Protein backbone atom coordinates (compact mmCIF):
# COMPACT_ATOMS: atom_id res chain seq x y z
CA UNK A 1 0.00 0.00 0.00
CA UNK A 2 1.34 3.41 -0.99
CA UNK A 3 1.20 6.89 0.42
CA UNK A 4 -1.91 8.57 1.73
CA UNK A 5 -3.92 9.85 -1.22
CA UNK A 6 -7.19 11.10 0.23
CA UNK A 7 -7.56 12.22 3.81
CA UNK A 8 -10.78 13.47 5.35
CA UNK A 9 -10.57 15.45 8.58
CA UNK A 10 -13.54 16.24 10.84
CA UNK A 11 -15.95 16.47 7.96
CA UNK A 12 -19.50 17.52 8.81
CA UNK A 13 -22.45 18.25 6.60
CA UNK A 14 -25.91 19.59 7.43
CA UNK A 15 -28.83 20.29 5.14
CA UNK A 16 -30.49 23.10 7.05
CA UNK A 17 -31.21 21.63 10.48
CA UNK A 18 -30.62 18.07 9.35
CA UNK A 19 -27.15 16.91 10.34
CA UNK A 20 -26.23 14.23 7.86
CA UNK A 21 -22.50 13.79 8.52
CA UNK A 22 -20.86 14.30 11.89
CA UNK A 23 -17.14 14.59 12.29
CA UNK A 24 -16.07 11.98 9.76
CA UNK A 25 -12.40 11.05 9.51
CA UNK A 26 -10.94 8.77 6.91
CA UNK A 27 -7.69 8.01 5.18
CA UNK A 28 -7.26 6.23 1.87
CA UNK A 29 -3.86 5.16 0.59
CA UNK A 30 -2.78 4.73 -2.99
CA UNK A 31 -4.04 1.44 -4.37
CA UNK A 32 -6.42 0.84 -1.49
CA UNK A 33 -10.03 -0.28 -1.89
CA UNK A 34 -12.34 1.03 0.81
CA UNK A 35 -15.97 -0.02 0.99
CA UNK A 36 -18.52 2.04 2.87
CA UNK A 37 -21.57 0.17 4.10
CA UNK A 38 -24.49 1.22 6.26
CA UNK A 39 -28.25 1.58 6.41
CA UNK A 40 -30.21 3.76 4.04
CA UNK A 41 -30.10 7.42 4.98
CA UNK A 42 -26.92 7.08 7.01
CA UNK A 43 -25.13 9.64 4.84
CA UNK A 44 -22.99 7.42 2.60
CA UNK A 45 -23.86 9.19 -0.65
CA UNK A 46 -23.55 12.59 0.96
CA UNK A 47 -20.10 11.63 2.22
CA UNK A 48 -18.95 10.53 -1.22
CA UNK A 49 -20.39 13.69 -2.78
CA UNK A 50 -18.60 15.84 -0.22
CA UNK A 51 -15.30 14.26 -1.21
CA UNK A 52 -15.49 15.63 -4.75
CA UNK A 53 -17.43 18.72 -3.75
CA UNK A 54 -20.72 17.90 -5.45
CA UNK A 55 -21.89 18.87 -1.97
CA UNK A 56 -20.10 21.55 0.00
CA UNK A 57 -19.19 20.30 3.48
CA UNK A 58 -20.40 22.42 6.39
CA UNK A 59 -17.03 22.04 8.08
CA UNK A 60 -13.89 19.95 7.96
CA UNK A 61 -11.46 19.32 5.17
CA UNK A 62 -10.69 16.89 2.39
CA UNK A 63 -7.00 16.59 1.58
CA UNK A 64 -5.88 15.23 -1.76
CA UNK A 65 -2.16 14.55 -1.81
CA UNK A 66 -1.86 17.01 1.03
CA UNK A 67 -3.87 19.84 -0.54
CA UNK A 68 -7.19 20.87 0.99
CA UNK A 69 -9.66 20.83 -1.86
CA UNK A 70 -12.41 22.41 0.23
CA UNK A 71 -10.35 25.59 0.13
CA UNK A 72 -11.89 28.25 -2.07
CA UNK A 73 -8.55 28.62 -3.83
CA UNK A 74 -8.24 24.90 -4.59
CA UNK A 75 -8.59 23.75 -8.21
CA UNK A 76 -11.61 21.51 -7.86
CA UNK A 77 -11.73 20.74 -11.57
CA UNK A 78 -8.18 19.41 -11.46
CA UNK A 79 -9.14 17.23 -8.50
CA UNK A 80 -12.20 15.92 -10.32
CA UNK A 81 -10.08 15.08 -13.35
CA UNK A 82 -7.98 12.91 -11.08
CA UNK A 83 -10.71 11.40 -8.93
CA UNK A 84 -13.61 10.13 -11.00
CA UNK A 85 -17.09 9.14 -9.91
CA UNK A 86 -19.55 6.43 -10.90
CA UNK A 87 -23.19 7.03 -10.00
CA UNK A 88 -25.99 4.75 -8.96
CA UNK A 89 -28.09 5.82 -11.94
CA UNK A 90 -25.21 5.77 -14.48
CA UNK A 91 -25.95 9.34 -15.65
CA UNK A 92 -24.79 8.74 -19.20
CA UNK A 93 -25.25 11.54 -21.74
CA UNK A 94 -28.28 10.33 -23.71
CA UNK A 95 -27.60 12.15 -26.98
CA UNK A 96 -24.06 10.84 -27.33
CA UNK A 97 -23.08 7.40 -28.51
CA UNK A 98 -21.40 5.05 -26.08
CA UNK A 99 -18.00 6.02 -27.50
CA UNK A 100 -19.01 9.69 -27.48
CA UNK A 101 -19.76 9.41 -23.78
CA UNK A 102 -16.31 8.01 -23.16
CA UNK A 103 -14.35 10.48 -25.29
CA UNK A 104 -16.13 13.73 -24.45
CA UNK A 105 -14.41 14.72 -21.22
CA UNK A 106 -10.82 13.89 -22.24
CA UNK A 107 -11.24 15.91 -25.44
CA UNK A 108 -12.64 18.89 -23.52
CA UNK A 109 -10.45 18.87 -20.44
CA UNK A 110 -7.23 17.23 -21.52
CA UNK A 111 -7.32 18.67 -25.05
CA UNK A 112 -6.66 15.24 -26.40
CA UNK A 113 -7.25 15.06 -30.15
CA UNK A 114 -10.34 13.21 -31.24
CA UNK A 115 -8.77 10.21 -32.94
CA UNK A 116 -6.45 9.56 -30.03
CA UNK A 117 -9.38 9.86 -27.61
CA UNK A 118 -11.35 7.40 -29.72
CA UNK A 119 -8.51 4.92 -29.75
CA UNK A 120 -8.19 5.07 -25.98
CA UNK A 121 -11.98 4.98 -25.68
CA UNK A 122 -12.16 1.78 -27.72
CA UNK A 123 -9.48 0.23 -25.53
CA UNK A 124 -11.51 1.04 -22.44
CA UNK A 125 -14.74 -0.26 -23.95
CA UNK A 126 -12.91 -3.48 -24.72
CA UNK A 127 -11.79 -3.59 -21.13
CA UNK A 128 -15.40 -3.42 -19.89
CA UNK A 129 -16.49 -5.86 -22.62
CA UNK A 130 -18.48 -3.42 -24.74
CA UNK A 131 -16.31 -2.69 -27.78
CA UNK A 132 -19.12 -3.95 -30.02
CA UNK A 133 -21.50 -1.34 -28.56
CA UNK A 134 -19.26 1.67 -29.23
CA UNK A 135 -21.53 3.26 -31.81
CA UNK A 136 -24.97 2.68 -30.31
CA UNK A 137 -26.92 5.07 -28.11
CA UNK A 138 -26.83 4.42 -24.34
CA UNK A 139 -30.62 4.04 -24.15
CA UNK A 140 -30.38 0.81 -26.14
CA UNK A 141 -28.18 -0.82 -23.48
CA UNK A 142 -29.12 -2.78 -20.39
CA UNK A 143 -28.48 -1.23 -16.99
CA UNK A 144 -25.39 -3.35 -16.44
CA UNK A 145 -24.00 -2.33 -19.81
CA UNK A 146 -24.74 1.33 -19.13
CA UNK A 147 -22.92 1.15 -15.83
CA UNK A 148 -19.92 -0.43 -17.50
CA UNK A 149 -19.92 2.44 -20.01
CA UNK A 150 -20.03 4.86 -17.08
CA UNK A 151 -16.97 3.15 -15.62
CA UNK A 152 -15.17 3.35 -18.97
CA UNK A 153 -16.12 7.04 -19.16
CA UNK A 154 -14.58 7.67 -15.74
CA UNK A 155 -11.47 5.66 -16.67
CA UNK A 156 -10.97 7.71 -19.83
CA UNK A 157 -9.82 10.57 -17.62
CA UNK A 158 -6.99 8.31 -16.42
CA UNK A 159 -7.99 8.93 -12.83
CA UNK A 160 -5.82 8.23 -9.82
CA UNK A 161 -8.87 7.12 -7.86
CA UNK A 162 -12.55 6.34 -8.39
CA UNK A 163 -15.58 6.94 -6.19
CA UNK A 164 -18.52 4.56 -6.64
CA UNK A 165 -21.94 5.36 -5.19
CA UNK A 166 -23.92 2.12 -5.07
CA UNK A 167 -22.98 1.24 -8.64
CA UNK A 168 -25.14 -1.88 -8.71
CA UNK A 169 -28.18 -0.83 -6.69
CA UNK A 170 -30.21 0.24 -9.73
CA UNK A 171 -29.55 -3.02 -11.56
CA UNK A 172 -31.61 -6.14 -11.97
CA UNK A 173 -29.98 -8.87 -9.88
CA UNK A 174 -28.72 -10.83 -12.88
CA UNK A 175 -26.79 -7.78 -14.13
CA UNK A 176 -24.95 -7.04 -10.89
CA UNK A 177 -22.17 -9.55 -11.48
CA UNK A 178 -20.88 -8.10 -14.75
CA UNK A 179 -20.37 -4.70 -13.12
CA UNK A 180 -18.78 -6.10 -9.97
CA UNK A 181 -16.40 -8.14 -12.13
CA UNK A 182 -15.18 -5.00 -13.88
CA UNK A 183 -14.66 -3.40 -10.47
CA UNK A 184 -12.78 -6.45 -9.21
CA UNK A 185 -10.43 -6.23 -12.19
CA UNK A 186 -9.79 -2.57 -11.43
CA UNK A 187 -9.03 -3.43 -7.83
CA UNK A 188 -6.55 -6.07 -8.97
CA UNK A 189 -4.82 -3.56 -11.22
CA UNK A 190 -4.27 -1.39 -8.17
CA UNK A 191 -6.90 1.31 -8.74
CA UNK A 192 -7.65 3.30 -5.62
CA UNK A 193 -11.37 3.03 -4.98
CA UNK A 194 -13.95 4.20 -2.46
CA UNK A 195 -17.09 2.15 -2.95
CA UNK A 196 -20.43 2.71 -1.28
CA UNK A 197 -22.21 -0.60 -1.65
CA UNK A 198 -24.82 -2.99 -0.37
CA UNK A 199 -22.95 -5.91 -1.94
CA UNK A 200 -21.60 -7.49 1.24
CA UNK A 201 -19.67 -10.24 -0.53
CA UNK A 202 -17.87 -7.65 -2.63
CA UNK A 203 -16.98 -5.65 0.50
CA UNK A 204 -15.66 -8.76 2.22
CA UNK A 205 -13.71 -10.19 -0.69
CA UNK A 206 -12.45 -7.17 -2.61
CA UNK A 207 -12.09 -4.33 -0.12
CA UNK A 208 -8.97 -3.80 1.93
CA UNK A 209 -10.91 -1.85 4.47
CA UNK A 210 -14.58 -1.50 5.36
CA UNK A 211 -16.24 1.48 6.99
CA UNK A 212 -19.62 1.03 8.61
CA UNK A 213 -21.66 4.22 8.81
CA UNK A 214 -24.90 4.93 10.65
CA UNK A 215 -26.68 8.19 11.41
CA UNK A 216 -23.85 10.24 9.95
CA UNK A 217 -21.19 8.65 12.13
CA UNK A 218 -18.45 6.20 11.35
CA UNK A 219 -19.48 3.46 13.75
CA UNK A 220 -16.74 1.03 12.93
CA UNK A 221 -13.89 0.64 10.52
CA UNK A 222 -11.15 -1.87 10.01
CA UNK A 223 -9.75 -4.55 7.72
CA UNK A 224 -12.51 -5.94 5.52
CA UNK A 225 -12.47 -9.50 6.84
CA UNK A 226 -12.54 -8.36 10.41
CA UNK A 227 -15.42 -5.88 10.06
CA UNK A 228 -17.47 -8.22 7.91
CA UNK A 229 -16.88 -11.41 9.89
CA UNK A 230 -16.08 -10.27 13.40
CA UNK A 231 -17.56 -6.83 13.91
CA UNK A 232 -16.88 -5.26 17.30
CA UNK A 233 -19.83 -2.90 17.47
CA UNK A 234 -23.36 -3.99 18.26
CA UNK A 235 -24.83 -1.81 15.47
CA UNK A 236 -22.53 -3.36 12.88
CA UNK A 237 -23.52 -6.84 14.03
CA UNK A 238 -27.22 -6.02 13.80
CA UNK A 239 -26.81 -4.47 10.37
CA UNK A 240 -24.80 -7.38 8.97
CA UNK A 241 -27.05 -10.05 10.45
CA UNK A 242 -30.03 -8.40 8.78
CA UNK A 243 -28.20 -8.72 5.50
CA UNK A 244 -27.27 -12.34 6.07
CA UNK A 245 -30.86 -13.22 6.88
CA UNK A 246 -32.21 -11.70 3.70
Amino acid at each position, binding site marked *: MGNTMIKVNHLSKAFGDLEVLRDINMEVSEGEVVCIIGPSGSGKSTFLRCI*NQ*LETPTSGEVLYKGENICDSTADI*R*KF*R*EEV*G*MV*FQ*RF*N*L*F*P*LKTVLGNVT*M*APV*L*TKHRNKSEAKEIGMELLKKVGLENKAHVMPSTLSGGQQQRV*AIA*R*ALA*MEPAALLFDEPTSALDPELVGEVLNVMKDLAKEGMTMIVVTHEMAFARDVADRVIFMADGYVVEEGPAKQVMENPKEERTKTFLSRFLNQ
Partner: protein
Amino acid sequence: MGIDLELLQTIGPMLFRGLKVTMEIAVIGILLGFILGSLCGYALQGRNKIAKGIANLYVWIMRGTPIVVQALYVYFVVPEIIGLIKGERMVLDPTLAGILVITLNAGAFISQLVRGALDSVDIGQKEAGASLGLSKMQIMIHIIIPPAFRSIIPSLFNQFIISVKDTALLSMISVNEITRQTQNFVMRTYKTIPGYTVCAIFYLVLLSVLMIVQKLVEKKIASK
Protein backbone atom coordinates in the same frame (compact mmCIF):
# COMPACT_ATOMS: atom_id res chain seq x y z
CA MET B 1 -68.95 37.72 -58.04
CA GLY B 2 -67.29 34.37 -58.58
CA ILE B 3 -63.66 33.36 -58.53
CA ASP B 4 -62.62 33.33 -62.18
CA LEU B 5 -59.36 33.10 -64.04
CA GLU B 6 -59.11 36.85 -64.54
CA LEU B 7 -59.48 37.48 -60.82
CA LEU B 8 -56.85 34.88 -60.01
CA GLN B 9 -54.49 36.43 -62.55
CA THR B 10 -54.76 39.75 -60.75
CA ILE B 11 -54.75 38.66 -57.10
CA GLY B 12 -52.37 35.70 -57.58
CA PRO B 13 -49.16 37.68 -58.14
CA MET B 14 -50.17 40.05 -55.32
CA LEU B 15 -50.60 37.18 -52.88
CA PHE B 16 -47.25 35.69 -53.83
CA ARG B 17 -45.57 39.06 -53.36
CA GLY B 18 -47.29 39.17 -49.96
CA LEU B 19 -46.15 35.61 -49.24
CA LYS B 20 -42.55 36.67 -49.76
CA VAL B 21 -42.93 39.48 -47.23
CA THR B 22 -44.84 37.29 -44.78
CA MET B 23 -42.22 34.55 -44.86
CA GLU B 24 -39.34 36.98 -44.71
CA ILE B 25 -40.75 38.59 -41.57
CA ALA B 26 -41.75 35.30 -39.94
CA VAL B 27 -38.44 33.55 -40.65
CA ILE B 28 -36.20 36.45 -39.62
CA GLY B 29 -38.51 37.16 -36.68
CA ILE B 30 -38.41 33.59 -35.38
CA LEU B 31 -34.61 33.38 -35.78
CA LEU B 32 -33.98 36.67 -33.98
CA GLY B 33 -36.74 35.75 -31.51
CA PHE B 34 -34.91 32.49 -30.83
CA ILE B 35 -31.70 34.37 -30.04
CA LEU B 36 -33.53 36.90 -27.86
CA GLY B 37 -35.61 34.18 -26.22
CA SER B 38 -32.54 32.05 -25.51
CA LEU B 39 -30.76 34.93 -23.81
CA CYS B 40 -33.85 35.80 -21.76
CA GLY B 41 -34.58 32.16 -20.97
CA TYR B 42 -31.00 31.75 -19.77
CA ALA B 43 -31.40 34.87 -17.63
CA LEU B 44 -34.73 33.63 -16.23
CA GLN B 45 -33.22 30.40 -14.88
CA GLY B 46 -29.88 31.95 -13.88
CA ARG B 47 -28.75 33.59 -10.68
CA ASN B 48 -28.20 37.16 -11.89
CA LYS B 49 -31.07 39.12 -10.28
CA ILE B 50 -30.82 42.15 -12.57
CA ALA B 51 -30.83 40.08 -15.77
CA LYS B 52 -33.72 38.06 -14.39
CA GLY B 53 -35.63 41.24 -13.54
CA ILE B 54 -35.18 42.67 -17.02
CA ALA B 55 -36.23 39.40 -18.67
CA ASN B 56 -39.31 39.16 -16.45
CA LEU B 57 -40.30 42.75 -17.22
CA TYR B 58 -39.98 42.09 -20.93
CA VAL B 59 -42.04 38.91 -20.84
CA TRP B 60 -44.66 40.63 -18.67
CA ILE B 61 -45.08 43.54 -21.12
CA MET B 62 -45.29 41.22 -24.13
CA ARG B 63 -47.83 38.94 -22.51
CA GLY B 64 -49.85 41.80 -21.11
CA THR B 65 -50.44 43.77 -24.32
CA PRO B 66 -52.15 42.84 -27.59
CA ILE B 67 -49.83 42.31 -30.52
CA VAL B 68 -51.70 44.95 -32.55
CA VAL B 69 -50.96 47.56 -29.93
CA GLN B 70 -47.32 46.45 -29.92
CA ALA B 71 -47.18 46.86 -33.69
CA LEU B 72 -48.75 50.33 -33.58
CA TYR B 73 -46.41 51.28 -30.78
CA VAL B 74 -43.27 50.12 -32.56
CA TYR B 75 -44.28 51.66 -35.87
CA PHE B 76 -45.69 55.01 -34.75
CA VAL B 77 -44.55 55.79 -31.22
CA VAL B 78 -40.95 54.56 -31.18
CA PRO B 79 -39.82 56.69 -34.20
CA GLU B 80 -41.66 59.67 -32.72
CA ILE B 81 -39.81 59.33 -29.40
CA ILE B 82 -36.47 58.84 -31.13
CA GLY B 83 -37.32 61.85 -33.29
CA LEU B 84 -38.02 63.99 -30.23
CA ILE B 85 -34.71 62.99 -28.68
CA LYS B 86 -32.64 63.45 -31.83
CA GLY B 87 -34.61 66.49 -32.96
CA GLU B 88 -35.29 65.23 -36.49
CA ARG B 89 -38.16 63.39 -38.10
CA MET B 90 -37.69 59.67 -38.33
CA VAL B 91 -39.59 57.06 -40.29
CA LEU B 92 -39.36 53.35 -39.64
CA ASP B 93 -39.60 50.99 -42.58
CA PRO B 94 -42.84 48.99 -42.03
CA THR B 95 -41.22 45.64 -42.79
CA LEU B 96 -38.45 46.39 -40.34
CA ALA B 97 -41.03 47.37 -37.73
CA GLY B 98 -42.86 44.12 -38.50
CA ILE B 99 -39.72 42.03 -37.99
CA LEU B 100 -39.14 43.81 -34.70
CA VAL B 101 -42.68 43.09 -33.47
CA ILE B 102 -42.56 39.42 -34.43
CA THR B 103 -39.08 39.09 -32.87
CA LEU B 104 -40.19 40.63 -29.59
CA ASN B 105 -43.32 38.54 -29.48
CA ALA B 106 -41.76 35.21 -30.39
CA GLY B 107 -38.81 35.99 -28.09
CA ALA B 108 -41.08 36.36 -25.06
CA PHE B 109 -42.73 33.02 -25.71
CA ILE B 110 -39.46 31.26 -26.52
CA SER B 111 -37.81 32.57 -23.34
CA GLN B 112 -40.37 30.61 -21.33
CA LEU B 113 -39.68 27.49 -23.36
CA VAL B 114 -35.94 27.87 -22.96
CA ARG B 115 -36.17 28.45 -19.24
CA GLY B 116 -38.24 25.31 -18.79
CA ALA B 117 -36.00 23.24 -21.04
CA LEU B 118 -32.77 24.31 -19.32
CA ASP B 119 -34.32 23.59 -15.92
CA SER B 120 -35.56 20.18 -16.89
CA VAL B 121 -32.24 18.65 -17.96
CA ASP B 122 -31.50 15.81 -15.54
CA ILE B 123 -29.32 16.98 -12.65
CA GLY B 124 -27.51 13.63 -12.76
CA GLN B 125 -26.04 14.47 -16.16
CA LYS B 126 -24.82 17.84 -14.93
CA GLU B 127 -23.20 16.13 -11.95
CA ALA B 128 -21.64 13.51 -14.22
CA GLY B 129 -20.15 16.35 -16.26
CA ALA B 130 -18.90 18.12 -13.15
CA SER B 131 -17.40 14.90 -11.78
CA LEU B 132 -15.40 14.55 -15.01
CA GLY B 133 -13.81 17.94 -14.44
CA LEU B 134 -15.85 19.95 -16.94
CA SER B 135 -16.26 23.68 -16.32
CA LYS B 136 -19.68 25.29 -15.80
CA MET B 137 -19.50 26.65 -19.33
CA GLN B 138 -18.60 23.24 -20.81
CA ILE B 139 -21.46 21.64 -18.89
CA MET B 140 -23.83 24.25 -20.28
CA ILE B 141 -22.66 23.87 -23.87
CA HIS B 142 -22.08 20.12 -24.08
CA ILE B 143 -24.49 18.64 -21.56
CA ILE B 144 -27.40 20.98 -20.90
CA ILE B 145 -28.02 22.76 -24.20
CA PRO B 146 -28.17 19.78 -26.61
CA PRO B 147 -31.06 17.93 -24.92
CA ALA B 148 -32.74 21.22 -23.98
CA PHE B 149 -32.68 22.43 -27.58
CA ARG B 150 -33.94 19.14 -28.85
CA SER B 151 -36.86 19.17 -26.45
CA ILE B 152 -38.09 22.58 -27.59
CA ILE B 153 -37.88 22.04 -31.36
CA PRO B 154 -41.59 21.06 -31.69
CA SER B 155 -42.68 24.10 -29.66
CA LEU B 156 -40.37 26.33 -31.66
CA PHE B 157 -41.99 25.15 -34.82
CA ASN B 158 -45.38 25.80 -33.29
CA GLN B 159 -44.34 29.35 -32.45
CA PHE B 160 -43.17 29.77 -36.03
CA ILE B 161 -46.66 28.87 -37.27
CA ILE B 162 -48.18 31.34 -34.79
CA SER B 163 -45.72 34.00 -35.99
CA VAL B 164 -46.70 33.39 -39.60
CA LYS B 165 -50.32 34.03 -38.66
CA ASP B 166 -49.40 37.02 -36.52
CA THR B 167 -47.88 38.74 -39.53
CA ALA B 168 -51.44 39.33 -40.80
CA LEU B 169 -51.87 41.92 -38.05
CA LEU B 170 -48.97 43.85 -39.53
CA SER B 171 -51.35 44.94 -42.31
CA MET B 172 -52.37 47.55 -39.71
CA ILE B 173 -48.99 49.24 -40.09
CA SER B 174 -48.97 48.97 -43.88
CA VAL B 175 -46.64 46.02 -44.19
CA ASN B 176 -47.27 44.55 -47.64
CA GLU B 177 -47.80 40.99 -46.47
CA ILE B 178 -50.57 38.65 -47.65
CA THR B 179 -53.48 40.31 -45.83
CA ARG B 180 -52.45 43.83 -46.82
CA GLN B 181 -52.14 42.73 -50.43
CA THR B 182 -55.66 41.35 -50.28
CA GLN B 183 -56.97 44.59 -48.77
CA ASN B 184 -55.32 46.54 -51.59
CA PHE B 185 -56.90 44.24 -54.14
CA VAL B 186 -60.36 44.55 -52.59
CA MET B 187 -60.10 48.33 -52.29
CA ARG B 188 -59.19 48.60 -55.97
CA THR B 189 -61.70 46.11 -57.35
CA TYR B 190 -64.51 46.00 -54.75
CA LYS B 191 -64.44 42.22 -55.14
CA THR B 192 -64.82 41.66 -51.40
CA ILE B 193 -66.16 38.10 -51.29
CA PRO B 194 -63.84 36.45 -53.81
CA GLY B 195 -60.87 38.52 -52.68
CA TYR B 196 -61.00 37.54 -49.02
CA THR B 197 -62.05 33.98 -49.88
CA VAL B 198 -58.98 33.47 -52.02
CA CYS B 199 -56.91 35.05 -49.25
CA ALA B 200 -58.30 32.66 -46.63
CA ILE B 201 -57.69 29.64 -48.87
CA PHE B 202 -54.17 30.88 -49.56
CA TYR B 203 -53.44 31.04 -45.81
CA LEU B 204 -55.05 27.65 -45.27
CA VAL B 205 -52.82 26.00 -47.86
CA LEU B 206 -49.72 27.77 -46.54
CA LEU B 207 -50.38 26.80 -42.92
CA SER B 208 -51.35 23.26 -43.85
CA VAL B 209 -48.00 22.82 -45.56
CA LEU B 210 -46.26 24.14 -42.46
CA MET B 211 -48.30 21.83 -40.21
CA ILE B 212 -47.34 18.85 -42.34
CA VAL B 213 -43.67 19.81 -42.10
CA GLN B 214 -44.12 20.16 -38.34
CA LYS B 215 -45.50 16.64 -38.09
CA LEU B 216 -42.57 15.29 -40.09
CA VAL B 217 -40.08 17.11 -37.87
CA GLU B 218 -41.77 15.77 -34.75
CA LYS B 219 -41.70 12.24 -36.10
CA LYS B 220 -38.04 12.56 -36.97
CA ILE B 221 -37.20 13.71 -33.42
CA ALA B 222 -39.31 11.02 -31.78
CA SER B 223 -37.69 8.28 -33.88
CA LYS B 224 -34.18 9.20 -32.67
